């Protein structure tokens, strides 16, 4: 069915006409070559997707038949292939998943804690089950806004679908761009192909402006999902959106049908997005391996070696901040501008997240993200002692003159800070599990500027030593690479990087020289373990045993790092786009930032 449809579209393309409607398999050709030749022609929505829009500010253009034939995700197949004239939310949902019990509604907003009936919230709609032969779980999601009364019938909708065959996400948008009447029209807005290679200028006005790696985004991916409706383990519950809650001042939206399927951020994380990210990264990693042929399995030499073809691209996230998540303490600040004075309890504790101190996801592994990592669990020790009180946190907010929504205050959950993006950490972990990089190599990189898990200039400058092409010995499936004895003679990447550093002949004491020392040490994993322990002990001593002045100084030093990371995110040419509030509401900033 799909092949014959593609063939048909190709025939039409050859004839320079457009398919504008297919009803029960019968094509209705409504528009001819005329529409292709008249710039600015406004297209009424037809039952087949017609348009693409490369940038927000550009005019929509007709999709070529080849482009249409290259769309194979479930969202396209279920809706845009022959029901693209469905623009009302209820119709769209019915086309994707007619069984309402298999729909899931998640809500996020920087104003999530504000219960007053005002403003808008962002909804993410996910699906499970199957429809029309398409498996939906993790393969289609919609994003749209709603107000106190619920979803407008004619909502603008952003959507993505995962094309498993091509290993890419396709992004779509429903809005009135290109319509002289203001009618809503679906447009193809781009795919995730080579998203990671795009420059900031190329990203401007596209979905990839924010979808940096090409994957879906959940900025606050992990507990306590600051800004999301959640509920597990003391995370925030937006009870004003829950029709079953006892809140007497619920938004009317809570009693509308879509909100019967209101779900919580933990589900979006564990049930939908983490599997989605892992799949995306498998596709990314596989695409960078040398193959017998274009579609074949990765090639393997007689010595059992495989070949990485794009090493620098693959490992860029290990050295540079390509993607971030936002993590916070699991404890509230008590001083959110939308909260009440009674929320503040001076003595209540605030636990600083371990990932603030180092990349514990890769160093320790495990945790809720479930990465394999290096299993150096002393990296998690920070969470056992690195704590402050709400009063100490408030003092820091005052000292650093931080503003949220224009007033002094903090996020609902305190210590809100960028951390390395999970989607990129998982990519590196998959490379580790496959044997593309060894634990020794990973530990050496993570030892560099250990105390800056994100936005490290030191690591960033060393990416140039990573070759694009190198061979590696794959780790057998089911074998944990950290259980294997170090085999320096077969650690070909490490050898190649050392060789390139040697060629550059760096001066002693430079970052490159330090990197070489780490790579040539007998056991960089054990070196890292020791570095982590020294780091843990130093911070613990400063917080617990250095007296009130010493503790205050250490908290101020740590908070300075936090504020600086926020600033670096806001200054980053790409990652700044993740703040959709223009620096007002996502995170407290100094006025000058």
């Amino acid at each position, binding site marked *: 069915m799909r092949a014959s449809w593609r063939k048909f579209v190709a025939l039409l393309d050859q004839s320079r006409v457009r398919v504008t409607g297919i009803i029960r398999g019968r094509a209705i050709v409504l528009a001819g070559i005329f529409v292709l030749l008249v710039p600015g022609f406004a297209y009424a929505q037809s039952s087949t997707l017609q348009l693409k829009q490369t940038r927000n500010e550009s005019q929509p253009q007709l999709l070529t038949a080849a482009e249409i034939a290259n769309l194979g995700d479930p969202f396209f197949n279920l809706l845009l292939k022959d029901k693209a004239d469905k623009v009302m939310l209820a119709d769209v949902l019915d086309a994707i998943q007619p069984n309402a019990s298999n729909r899931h509604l998640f809500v996020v907003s920087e104003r999530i804690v504000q219960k007053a009936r005002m403003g808008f919230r962002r909804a993410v709609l996910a699906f499970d089950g199957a429809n029309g032969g398409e498996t939906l779980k993790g393969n289609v999601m919609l994003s749209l806004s709603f107000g106190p009364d619920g979803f407008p019938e004619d909502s603008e909708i952003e959507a993505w679908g995962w094309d498993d065959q091509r290993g890419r996400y396709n992004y779509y948008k429903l809005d009135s761009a290109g319509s002289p009447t203001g009618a809503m029209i679906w447009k193809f807005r781009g795919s995730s192909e080579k998203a990671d290679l795009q420059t900031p200028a190329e990203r401007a006005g596209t979905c990839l402006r924010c979808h940096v790696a090409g994957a879906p985004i959940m900025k606050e991916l992990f507990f*306590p999902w600051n800004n999301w409706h959640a509920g597990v*383990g*003391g995370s925030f519950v937006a009870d004003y959106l829950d029709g079953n809650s*006892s809140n007497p001042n619920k938004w009317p939206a809570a009693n509308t049908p879509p909100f019967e399927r209101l779900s919580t951020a933990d589900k979006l994380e564990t049930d939908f997005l983490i599997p989605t990210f892992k799949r995306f990264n498998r596709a990314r990693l596989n695409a960078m391996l040398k193959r017998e042929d274009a579609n074949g399995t990765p090639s393997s030499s007689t010595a059992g070696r495989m070949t990485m073809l794009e090493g620098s691209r693959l490992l860029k996230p290990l050295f540079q901040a390509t993607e971030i998540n936002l993590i916070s303490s*699991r404890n509230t600040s008590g001083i959110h501008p939308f909260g009440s004075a009674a929320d503040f309890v001076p003595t209540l504790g605030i636990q600083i997240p371990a990932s603030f101190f180092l990349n514990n996801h890769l160093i320790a*592994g*495990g945790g809720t993200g*479930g990465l394999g990592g290096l299993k150096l*669990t002393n990296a998690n020790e920070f969470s056992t002692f690195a704590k402050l009180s709400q009063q100490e946190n408030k003092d820091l907010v005052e000292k650093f003159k931080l503003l949220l929504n224009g007033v002094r205050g903090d996020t609902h959950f305190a210590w809100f800070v960028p951390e390395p993006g999970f989607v990129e950490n998982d990519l590196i972990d998959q490379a580790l599990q496959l044997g593309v990089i060894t634990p020794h190599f990973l530990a050496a990189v993570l030892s560099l500027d250990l105390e800056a898990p994100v936005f490290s200039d030191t690591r960033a400058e060393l990416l140039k030593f990573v070759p694009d092409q190198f061979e590696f010995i794959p780790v057998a499936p*089911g074998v944990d690479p950290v259980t294997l004895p170090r085999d320096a003679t077969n650690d070909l990447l490490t050898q190649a990087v050392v060789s390139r550093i040697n060629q550059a002949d760096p001066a002693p004491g430079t970052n490159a020289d330090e990197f070489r020392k780490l790579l040539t040490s007998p056991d960089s994993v054990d070196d890292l373990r020791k570095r982590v322990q020294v780091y843990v002990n130093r911070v613990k001593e400063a917080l617990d045993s250095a007296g009130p002045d010493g503790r205050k100084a250490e908290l101020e030093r740590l908070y300075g790092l936090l504020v600086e990371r926020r600033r670096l995110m806001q200054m980053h040419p790409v990652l700044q786009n993740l703040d959709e509030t223009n620096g007002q509401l996502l995170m407290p900033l100094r006025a000058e930032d």
Partner: protein
Amino acid sequence: MFPYSDPAGRNFLDNNAVADIFRQQLQGFYDTFARRVNSGFTWLEALDQLSGGQASQEVSVGWSSFPITAQATDALIDRDRFEYQDEYVEWRTETNQGGLTQVTFTTEFPEYFEAFAALGFNDLVNAIQDVMPGANPTVAELFGRGFNAASSPPLGRARMFRAHLQENPWNNGEKGILCLTQRFNTLNALFNLLAACSVRRTQGTPENTCSLVGDACGPARSSDPALCATAQRSVRGNLGLSLRDPTGVRIVKLDGVWRINNSTIDINDPAQNQGSWVMSRNARRAVLTIEAGLTVDGSPVRTGAQIARKLQVAADVLAAPDAALPEWARVGVESSSRGPE
């Protein structure tokens, strides 16, 4: 007395004496914690006697089984159950030639088996065999060496069985797993948590109430703060609440994307999962059998902790407006209340 039902859905193996012992024990929990001063936690009977034709509302509080407090590798979390598995879910792993073959999860509280132990050794063996057919436990295995089960009074047997659970091979993983044993995973802790968090507070948010109730709530866990926040939100909304019958924690579902030999399956659907995920005992027990080709989120299944990340459990709470409760069940009358008749 409220006719508390068998949490495992086994009707106490048709043993009325066991049912009586268990119900007495459970009534003791409800009675103790419903008398917590100024707590909105109340007797279950009160929610059947609402005025004005009101009906109670059921709220399910869910959480993930993965113990987020554990500063350990997945393998260690699997191995050291009594140290790390603290989310009212515990599990046992079975391996063959180093590979994981089966993971058994339980949320059953020991009080259930204590009731059988109180009645006698043979009754306890029947209960264990109901969980693990073919089990042939000895007195020494269940109670410790030198214990005379026949001559011990019922309370002594129950206490000794409970005290010996970490050494009991039918529970500690050596031969099987029977019930929750980790020190925080107790029925008393569950009741205490809800009663403490149901005292209306004027300071702090519902989410951080857990940090304000002392040892009753573990703020670093997933389960405790979720239950605590729900309780606090309820009482701030002028609701009274109680734990629904059957009391306890039920297994809800496995999250994630599961495949067998690269074909996506709904792991929670017995019609699709080829027997790899079997829930039993009223969703208090579940077994994942790991056949070749089973993956979760694209990865082979290597540890129980990996599964625990995907395993959702819940406790069910009943709530109703305090003003609709019988007077003896309302906030403020706890110490003088006659309690349910």
